[in-house]
C-alpha cells in the first residue's frame, strides 16, 4: 500500500505514537513533539550505521530486515567480487569510498580491516565489486531518507474554507 494513500492526520498521529514509544513510553503529546527531533536524528544515524536499524527503531520490522539483508548482501557481494580490495582511499578509489561511506557500519570497518591488502595482481572483477559496494552505499542514502519520511510524514496541504487546496 502506498504511504501517500494514507490520510495525513492518521500518518502524523502514527509518527507521534512511535515517538512516544521510542522515548520511553511518555504519554504527554507535547513531550513527544519536543523529543521528536532527537528520535528522528537517532533513527537516521542508526540507519547510516546499520542498514535497516532506523526502520527497526520506528517499528517497521519487515522493511528493516529486508533492507538489512539487501544492502548487506550487495556490499559484501561487491567485496567478494573485488577480492576484498574495493574499500580503499588511495589513488582514484577515494571517490568510490565517498559513495561507500554512506553505509558507515560496513564501509569503515571494511576500510580498517582490509587496509593491509595491496593490489598485487590484476583484479578482473574489481570494477564490478566497486560498483556493487558503491551502489549499496548510495542506496542506503535512499533508505535514510525513507527513515526520515517515516518518522516525519509530510502533512497534507492546507485547504481553504471552500475546500480547495492552497498548494
Amino acid at each position, binding site marked *: 500500500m*502506498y*504511504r501517500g494513500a494514507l490520510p495525513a492526520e492518521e500518518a502524523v498521529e502514527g509518527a507521534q505514537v512511535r515517538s512516544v514509544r521510542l522515548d520511553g513510553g511518555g504519554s504527554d503529546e507535547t513531550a513527544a513533539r519536543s523529543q521528536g527531533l532527537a528520535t528522528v536524528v537517532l533513527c537516521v544515524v542508526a540507519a547510516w550505521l546499520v542498514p535497516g536499524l532506523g526502520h527497526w527503531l520506528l517499528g517497521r520490522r519487515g*522493511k528493516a530486515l529486508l533492507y538489512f539483508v539487501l544492502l548487506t548482501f550487495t556490499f559484501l557481494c561487491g567485496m567478494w567480487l573485488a577480492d576484498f580490495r574495493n574499500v580503499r582511499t588511495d589513488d582514484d578509489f577515494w571517490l568510490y569510498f565517498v559513495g561507500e561511506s554512506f553505509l558507515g557500519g560496513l564501509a569503515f570497518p571494511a576500510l580498517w580491516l582490509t587496509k593491509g591488502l595491496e593490489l598485487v595482481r590484476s583484479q578482473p572483477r574489481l570494477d*564490478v565489486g566497486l*560498483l556493487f559496494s558503491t551502489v549499496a552505499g548510495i*542506496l542506503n542514502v535512499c533508505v535514510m531518507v525513507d527513515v526520515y519520511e517515516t518518522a516525519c510524514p509530510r502533512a497534507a496541504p492546507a485547504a481553504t474554507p471552500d475546500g480547495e487546496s492552497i498548494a
Partner: protein
Amino acid sequence: MNVQTVELVEHVALYFLLALLVSVTYHGLRREDVGDIVRTGIKRGLLFGLVSLFVFGVGGYLLAQWL
C-alpha cells in the same frame, strides 16, 4: 563455451542481480508491505533488465556494425 562467452554470461548475470537488488530497494521506499515490495521489485527489475539489455545489446551491436 569459450572464455569470452563465460565472461559475457557472468557479466549479464551480475547486471541482472544488481538491477533486481536496486529495484527491490527502490520499490520499498514507497510501500509498506514486504511481500508487495519484493514481488513488485523483482517484476519491474526483470523488466528493466530485459529492456535495457535489448536496447543496449542490439543498439551496441548495430553501432559496432556501422562503425
